């Protein structure tokens, strides 16, 4: 066997991201046969959308003409990204540590660890995108969600979507850092955080519904501006008729989103580094509890 080291010229962070993306997709898509996986990918988002639609229908006596319906429906659809991307990245810590017991081999390999974790979230992003698309398509076809395809500024929409996904990935990295420090009680953390943020993001109701002292949490969260902008870009004035962010133009919303994403990027990197450093000090990186 040659002893020559064949280190490729590819930067380590790209290599880590690319391989983690491949690994993440293998894990996400290979647990069932392709047909079952496809069915699951369709049924799951439609089931969760159906719950919301039924609840709405009961409460409003099936008033699907109200502007609140597309507001809720689209907010709920795009919020799937929050759960999938954010918890997908952080879940990689649990998966590698507890399930596959490979964390120590990954961590001691020449891997750029944050890039690796972000890569592991890509598969969940793809699955979330399918779910969001299916949910919105269902809304357009069967629930009178009116999207004028010719009127939508698609480049701005895609830019907003991309910025938001970056923001969610960075929030996921923060959560992954926290996961490194948790041992026994980490399994429900991702879902708990995503669930808590649901209330403060304006996904299914305007922030005005919240008590005044809780509203600042929503205004500080980039998810709020991201969801608002995505909805406005798809259904225009229907979404902007709600008072929460009415005074902001689309461009202003985007600038706020970018600024908050940038702020979260700095916080995420600092928090992740601090957590990783602390986890190494405490000897928690590869802790397996079989909990």
């Amino acid at each position, binding site marked *: *066997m*040659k*002893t020559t*080291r*064949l*280190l*490729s010229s*590819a930067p380590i962070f790209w*290599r*880590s991201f690319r*391989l983690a993306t*491949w*690994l993440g997709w*293998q*894990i996400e898509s*290979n*647990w069932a046969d392709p047909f079952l996986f496809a069915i699951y990918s369709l049924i799951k988002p439609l089931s969760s959308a159906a719950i919301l639609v039924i609840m709405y229908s009961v409460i409003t006596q099936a008033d699907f003409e109200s502007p609140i319906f597309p507001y809720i429906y689209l907010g709920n659809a795009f919020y799937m990204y929050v759960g999938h991307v954010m918890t997908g990245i952080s879940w990689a810590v649990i998966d590698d540590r507890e399930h*596959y*017991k*490979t964390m*120590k*081999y*990954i*961590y*001691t*390999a*020449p*891997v750029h660890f944050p890039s690796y974790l972000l890569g592991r979230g890509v598969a969940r992003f793809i699955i979330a995108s399918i779910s969001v698309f299916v949910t919105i398509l269902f809304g357009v076809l069967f629930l009178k969600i009116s999207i004028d395809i010719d009127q939508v500024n698609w480049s701005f929409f895609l830019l907003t979507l991309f910025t938001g996904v970056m923001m969610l990935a960075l929030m996921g990295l923060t959560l992954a850092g926290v996961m490194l420090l948790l041992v026994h009680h980490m399994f429900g953390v991702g879902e708990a955080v995503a669930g808590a943020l649901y209330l403060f993001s304006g996904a299914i109701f305007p922030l005005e519904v919240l008590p005044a002292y809780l509203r600042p949490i929503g205004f500080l969260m980039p998810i709020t501006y991201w969801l608002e902008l995505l909805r406005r870009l798809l259904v225009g004035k229907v979404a902007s008729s709600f008072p929460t962010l009415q005074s902001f133009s689309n461009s202003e919303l985007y600038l706020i989103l970018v600024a908050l994403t940038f702020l979260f990027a700095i916080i995420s990197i600092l928090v992740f580094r601090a957590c990783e450093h602390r986890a*190494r*000090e405490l*000897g928690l*990186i*590869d802790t397996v509890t079989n909990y």
Partner: protein
Amino acid sequence: MNFAIQTNHLGRVYKIRGSKKSTAKQLVALQDVSLEVHQGELFGLLGPNGAGKTTLIKILTTLLAPTSGTALVCGYDVVKEAHKIRPIINMVSGGESSGYGLLTVRENLWMFAQFYGLSSKEANRRIAQLLEIVGLADRINTKSSDLSTGLRQKMNIVRGFLTDPQVLFLDEPTLGLDVGASRDVRRFIRQWLDEHPERTILLTTHYMAEAEELCDRVAIINKGRVLACDTPASLKYRLQREAIYHLEVSQVTSPYPQHLQSIHGVRKFGVKPRDGYAILDLILDRDETLAAVVNTLTENQVRIINLQKREPTLEDVFVDLVGKSMEEIERGTNGASHAES
């Protein structure tokens, strides 16, 4: 002299939190460990479970930060230069079934090779070659979840060697393997180092025979401290002045071990219960002491089934240094103890 590994007064203390702050405890896992492992050496860390072997490996592989002292791998500091160490090392831990079960053997190995920057072509060539050597070639396309524990362990051993590391850490690599597989793995380790004389292996084990068979030098470690470090031959030479006896005796409940302690000339002894009998290993100052031992056993109604004088082993070295056999320490018994002459 080039050192692959150097540690200087290395220490690691774990803080274990109790239910209240006041009940927090400290567990000393490593204490004042100073070692130098030469490039090209197969260096063994020999000690019972909980001796600190894995803690030392975790520090050297950058998984864990030390709480005191320093450690260098190929001249790089494990705390400040972890990113320079990781591309040139690899590790394998025994007794576990790690690996991505949804991936095949080839995919698992290919992915790790890619992390280390190997080209796909070179990775596939090495994978095929190494799997052939360890007898796993026919399972290359088997999902690793379908492998037995032993075969998965072999896959992990291949993963460790695949990247041709400058320093390879093997933490109990034969733990959980059957006799035949353990022998194959030991032969492969020795063969690899013979073919790559510039590479270094740090191997931890609690199997005396494994350390004796494989290692150029051995450090005996217990309770986080290195008690001795030398070649197996030199360690055993220390005991060649003494008389070492191996007895098989009937298993009795009488407190004869306490009586043995009081015999002048009994340096150390260890008792290992077996099915229906017990093994008594004795280190005596001189052969004449044996008569007093036999008398004591007879007085305690202990029947001697077999008695033989033998050459010292690393097990005897361990008993001499620690005062108990490794088996006794792992069982947590206090049956044998120190009898100072």
